[in-house]
């Protein structure tokens, strides 16, 4: 119990960010027309690619002799990049198609 409270106290700023972000996420999305559901999902998918930053940090801190960490980290960087780059490009293509549909 004490350790849990201590953990909360040392991370209070982050707990605030978490709670405010939850409400923000709900507010930002709540009035989306249903045609935009799939592009929005895809866009959000690209945004959670921020996990790539963790992969870069873990890779950059790895001991050059620790091959397990290097290999797993390398894989993580590749997968994270795929998520980010692929996510944004696919979203862009979806929205492009959407625009053309509207013109017709």
């Amino acid at each position, binding site marked *: 119990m004490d350790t849990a409270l201590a953990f909360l106290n040392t991370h209070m700023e982050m707990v605030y960010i978490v709670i405010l972000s939850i409400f923000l996420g709900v507010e930002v999305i709540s009035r989306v027309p249903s045609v*935009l559901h799939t592009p929005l999902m895809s866009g959000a998918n690209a945004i959670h*690619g921020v996990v790539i930053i963790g992969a870069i940090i873990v890779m950059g801190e790895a001991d050059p002799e620790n091959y397990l960490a290097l290999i797993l980290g390398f894989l993580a960087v590749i*997968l994270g990049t*795929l998520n980010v780059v*692929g996510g944004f490009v696919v979203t862009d293509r979806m929205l492009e198609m959407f625009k053309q549909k509207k013109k017709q």
Partner: protein
Amino acid sequence: MLDSLLPIIYLVASVSFIIGLKMLSAPATARRGNLVAAAGMALAIFGTIFLYKKNGEHLHNYPWIFAGLLVGGIIGVVVARKVKMTAMPEMVSMFNGMGGACAALISMIEFNYLQSSGQEAPLGLLLVIVLGLIIGSVSFAGSVIAWGKLNGSIKDKAFAGQHIVNILLLIVLLVLGVIAVGGFAGNWQQEVFYIIIALSLLYGVMFVLPIGGADMPVVISLLNSFTGVAAACGGFLYNNPVMLTGGILVGSAGTILTILMCKAMNRSLKNVLIGSFGGNKSAG
């Protein structure tokens, strides 16, 4: 001067994610919103590579990092450009799975560091590592199954009492998670950790397998918000505000989006997740 630049870059990136999501939810601005978020992401990535410092030391292993970025970037662009319009939802699912796997891999490496350091790990650190591992693995396995179902290579499979098995699996997973975080495993810590990986992957498969193909977009959206939470665990792990805001934002927006998608189909989320069992007569 340069040292204080990174937090500002992270701030700008976080704001760009929020604005990007906001713009994405209106037809007129959607495409620009995507670009805004992408620009913020690029800023955050390159800021991290060149400016990130821990204990006054820059990152190293640059060749590995750039090779990874290059390989992932090229494959990502080529695959995303080539995919047929009709195959896009399954592509989104695949990319989502990659993000989940990335989060799980980060947890594995950090756990490996903790083990080899031999020191007793702080409770909070273990908690975010194990959470990131479980959620990331479930999201990865689930997304791959969703991808397979959408492109037709995996058929719906349900057997009697599957949701009971799933619930049991989830309970075992949670108990093991508590054991790992609380350090009750003693010398078996490593083994418990590996079992958690295996069970999380199994749960991801079992969770998505029985759900009908038509409901897949809803499930992908749900897994999408899972990966967001897994990314946020990484934010706690590295005290990194942009991972935290980006991850939680997607986690909450994704959850709401999932509910909205269900509503658009005139169904409830519970109905989508459990309903398939009623629909499959041969299973009952």
